[in-house]
C-alpha cells in the first residue's frame, strides 16, 4: 500500500477517483438543486454565479447534472468492472488449472468473444433489448468485457501452476478448490486488480459511447445522456459548448483515473518500468 502512495501516478489516479466518489456520495454538498432533469431554468445560459457551467438548451443546470450523473457512471464502472473481472478470473484460472480439453474449449470461447467486435455487438444487443435500461447496459458490458482479462489471467495461472509452492500444496493433499482459492489467487492479486481497473475503464468509456449514441435511457441522469442531448441539440455549434465538453471531460477524467492506477500498478509490480531517477551523491 505504501508503494501505491509513493507512486505519483497512483496518487493522482486515486485522488481523481476519490473526488468522483465524494461527488457521487454527497451531491447535496455541491449543488442545491435536487432534480437536475427538471426544466427549471432559463435555457442556454452561459456560466454564471447561479449556474456554474450554464444551462442546457432545455433549461437544466449543467453543473447539477454533472454532479448527479457521477453516481451512474461510478456504478457502471465498478459493477460492470467487478463482474467482468469475476468472469475473467473464473474462466481464465479454470482453463489454466483444469488443462486438457476443458482448457481448449474455454480458450476457444475466450478467443471468440475477444475477436468479435464488441461495440457493434453491443449496439445490436442494446437495440434489440429496447432502449436500454441500466441493467441491460451492465449485462452487455460484462458479456463483452471479460474476455481480454481471461487470456491474461490464464497465462499467469499457467506459469504459476507448476511452481513449487503449489506442488507442495498438492503433495500435502489439499483439495483443488483450496489450492486455487487460497494459494493461487493471492499470488495473482496484482494482475486481478489490474484487470479490474482495465474492465472499469472499458465500461466507463463504452457505456458513455452507448448513451451518447442514444442507446441508453434518455431520461436517466448520467454523463452519457447529457452527451446525447447536447449532441442532439447541436450544442457545439449553437454556442453551448460546455454542455458537450463538460460531461465528456468527466468521462475522460474518470477513465484517466483508472488508467493511471492501472499503469502505476504495472510499474509497482515491475520495477524495471519505473522512471529512472539518478541519485546525486550526498556532498
Amino acid at each position: 500500500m505504501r508503494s501505491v502512495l509513493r507512486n505519483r501516478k497512483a496518487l493522482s489516479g486515486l485522488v481523481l477517483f476519490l473526488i468522483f466518489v465524494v461527488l457521487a456520495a454527497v451531491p447535496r454538498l455541491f449543488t442545491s438543486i435536487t432534480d437536475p432533469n427538471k426544466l427549471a431554468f432559463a435555457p442556454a445560459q452561459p456560466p454564471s454565479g447561479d449556474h456554474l457551467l450554464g444551462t442546457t438548451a432545455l433549461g437544466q443546470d449543467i453543473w447539477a447534472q454533472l454532479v448527479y450523473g457521477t453516481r451512474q457512471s461510478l456504478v457502471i464502472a465498478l459493477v460492470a468492472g467487478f463482474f467482468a473481472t469475476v468472469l475473467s478470473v473464473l474462466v481464465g484460472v479454470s482453463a489454466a488449472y483444469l488443462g486438457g480439453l476443458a482448457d481448449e474449449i474455454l480458450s476457444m470461447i475466450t478467443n471468440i468473444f475477444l475477436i468479435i467486435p464488441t461495440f457493434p455487438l453491443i449496439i445490436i444487443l442494446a437495440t434489440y433489448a429496447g432502449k436500454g435500461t441500466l441493467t441491460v447496459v451492465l449485462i452487455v458490458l460484462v458479456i463483452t468485457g471479460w474476455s481480454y482479462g481471461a487470456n491474461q489471467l490464464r497465462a499467469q495461472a499457467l506459469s504459476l501452476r507448476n511452481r513449487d509452492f503449489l506442488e507442495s500444496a498438492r503433495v500435502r493433499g489439499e483439495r483443488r478448490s483450496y489450492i486455487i482459492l487460497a494459494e493461487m489467487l493471492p499470488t495473482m492479486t496484482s494482475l486481478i486488480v489490474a484487470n479490474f481497473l482495465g474492465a472499469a475503464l472499458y465500461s466507463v468509456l463504452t457505456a458513455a459511447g452507448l448513451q451518447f449514441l442514444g442507446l441508453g435511457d434518455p431520461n436517466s441522469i448520467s454523463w452519457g445522456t447529457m452527451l446525447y442531448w447536447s449532441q442532439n441539440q447541436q450544442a457545439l455549434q449553437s454556442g453551448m459548448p460546455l454542455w458537450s465538453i463538460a460531461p465528456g471531460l468527466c468521462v475522460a477524467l474518470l477513465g484517466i483515473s483508472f488508467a493511471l492506477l492501472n499503469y502505476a500498478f504495472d510499474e509497482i509490480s515491475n520495477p524495471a518500468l519505473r522512471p529512472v531517477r539518478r541519485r546525486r551523491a550526498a556532498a
Partner: protein
Amino acid sequence: MRYVLRRLGFFVLTLWAALTVNFFIPRFMPGSPLQALQIRTKNRLSPEALEQMLTSFGFKPRENLGGQYLDYLGNMFTGHWGVSIGTNLGEPITTIVAHALPWTLGLVGTATVLAFIAGTAIGVVAGWRRGGALDSVLPSVFVVTSALPYFWVGLLLILVFSVWTGGLLPSDFNYDSNLQPAFSGEFIGSVLHHAILPGLTIVVTAVGGWVLTMRNNMITTLAEDYIRMGRAKGLSNRKIMYQYAARNAFLPNLSGFAMSLGFVISGAILVEYVFNYPGLGYLLYNAVQNTDYPLMQVLFMLFTVAVLVSVLLCDFATAWLDPRARAKG
C-alpha cells in the same frame, strides 16, 4: 505450415461463431423484432419483397430452423444480403455497403495503421532512452491520452478547430457537398481536407496505447542477455536498438494490435458519428436509429470479418518475423 493452417482454422471457426450469434440474436431477444418488421412494412411491401428483405435473417417461416440457418449462412457468403428497410427502403444492401466501405477503409484504416506505426516508433525510442525528464513525463502523457473517449476528443477538436476558427477545418462529411466525386485535384483535396479532424481524432486517441506497450516491451527486452551480448560484441547502438531489441519487442505488440482491433472499430463508429462521416460506422448508427435490422446484421458480420482478417494478417506477419513461431506450428 502447420502454424498457417492452425490460424486459418481459428479464422473459420470464429467467423462461423459470429455468424451464428448474429443469426440467433433476433430469435432470442424479447420483443420479436421479426414481428415488428412485419407489422411495420405489411402495408408497403409484398410478401415476396418481405421475404427478400428478411434474407439476411435467413427468415423463411415455412422452413425449419436448421434449414433457415443453412440458407442464412449461404446467403451471407454469396453476398445475397437482402435490402435495407431504413431510409432507403428497398435499396440493396450491397450497394449501400459498397458506397460506405471505401470511406471507412480510407479514414479509419489509414489512421489506425498510422497510429500503430507512430506509436511503435515512439515506443522504441522511449524504451531505449531511459532516464531524464522525458522518461518520467512521457508515459504519464500517453496514459492520459489512451484513456480519452474517442468521441470527446472528436468534439473537442471540432470545437477548437472548426467552431472557434469559423470553419477552417470541416467537421462534417467526407467532402464538400457541392462537389462531384471525380479524380480531380479539387475533389481529392476536399476529401483530404475533410479527413483531417476525424483522422486526427483517431490517431491522437489510439497512439498512446501503442507507445506504452512498445515501451514496456522494449524495457523488458533490453534486460535480456542477448542485448548485453550485442554490446559485448561492440555493435553500434543503432544496430542493437533495431535488430536486437526492437525486432524482439515488436512481436508481442503485433498480436496485441490484432486483439485490440475490436476496440478500435468501436472508436471508429463513434468518430464517424461525431463527424457525420458516411462510412460503415455511420451506416450502423443510422441502421440502429431506423431499426433497419437487415443492414445491422450485415454490418456486424462485416466488422467481424474485418477484425478476423486483420488478426490473420498479423498472424502471418508474426510467422514471417519470428522463426520460433514457424517452428512451433
